[in-house]
């Protein structure tokens, strides 16, 4: 087939329509939030003293970390799924959540006596944390990987990893409403491991599933 012949076929198909990628991303984000919320509410749900806890800095700080991660990952993944879009700024913003966690960890180390560092870090339910963040994030991750297929990421493995970070940030935001361990020492350790597991899974998905 000559290239001119191919162009005839493409032109004849000009009227076929697909939803613009950027709109599709917002719909995907909405669907992912609904699925994560459903899994969260049907399994562990928020902690009973949620309203009281909402007045403490440590509890609220968890949401700052996870929401900042999710928002920055959402901006980056939209750029990564669009060929030729500049990703530099969005990439730089990905440092925001880790920096905030690092600052909180340093403050916590100043405020809490050294003897308690270990207990604060180990917490009371690290296994639940490492199990439920990936569990809540699995549905959203699947949606985001489908979206990457719908888009056109020129760096599919990186985009897949960011899909994992986005799913992780979203899942951790819900999980944080359940978890009694509010210390930044706990968050920096176990949330990071759980979210990294989703990022790894996302990178594998990007490698083997996102081909175009």
């Amino acid at each position, binding site marked *: *087939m*000559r*290239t*001119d*012949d*191919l*162009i*005839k*076929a*493409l*032109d*004849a*198909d*000009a*009227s*076929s329509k*697909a*939803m*613009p*990628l*950027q709109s*599709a991303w917002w719909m995907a984000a909405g669907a992912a939030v609904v699925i994560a919320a459903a899994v969260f509410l049907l399994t562990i749900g928020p902690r009973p003293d949620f309203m009281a806890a909402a007045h403490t800095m440590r509890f609220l700080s968890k949401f700052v970390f996870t929401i900042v991660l999710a928002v920055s990952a959402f901006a980056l993944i939209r750029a990564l*799924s*669009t*060929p*030729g*879009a500049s990703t530099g700024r969005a990439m730089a913003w990905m440092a925001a959540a880790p920096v905030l966690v690092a600052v909180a960890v340093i403050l916590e180390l100043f405020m809490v006596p050294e003897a308690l560092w270990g207990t604060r870090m180990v917490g009371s339910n690290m296994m639940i944390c490492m199990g439920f963040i990936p569990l809540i994030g699995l549905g959203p991750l699947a949606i985001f990987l489908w979206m990457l297929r719908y*888009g*056109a990421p*020129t760096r599919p493995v990186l985009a897949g990893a960011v899909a994992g970070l986005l799913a992780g940030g979203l899942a951790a935001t819900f999980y944080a409403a359940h978890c009694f361990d509010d210390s930044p020492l706990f968050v920096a350790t176990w949330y990071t491991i759980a979210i990294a597991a989703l990022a790894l899974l996302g990178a594998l998905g990007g490698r083997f599933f996102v*081909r*175009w």
Partner: protein
Amino acid sequence: MSGKDEAELSRLMRAAIAGDEKAYADFLHRIAALVRGFVRRKIVQGGVDPEDVVQETLLAIHVKRHTWRQDAPVLPWIYAIARFKLIDAFRRRGRRIEIDVDDIAETFAEPETETVSERDINRALDGLSPAQRSVVSAVSVEGRSIGETAAKFGISETAVRVSLHRGLAAIAKRFGQGRFGRE
């Protein structure tokens, strides 16, 4: 040069998305020339046929045109897709380099003739369902319109459009997965 190209191509692409087929044909011909120049500059040694990469890029541009933001410049979008497809072609060639020794010898023997039948897209076309293959061939190689194709096969125009769209999407998908023949 680039600024004028950019403005003109963005305008054509926007018109095409709004449903102007003539603008789309114009757009695709210009893109083919641009991408051909780009790919030929990048391929300095044999092994990858530039025209295969041009065709793969055009298909990818077509099936992924919903990823272009209408307020963003179109040239960086086009070149990013072309670069991705070029790298993909090199990677594939690297994997099959041993099987291809004979092909290369033949290419040296008669460099200018009949590379057309050896196109990757023909092999991808062979992998389609018979209905999709005949519709895609009728519209492309035989140059028939949607209406003429419908009359030729005795099916509705809608059925022709659906087969064409699915056929092109299937070829693009096969390229993406590095599969070309019938499985």
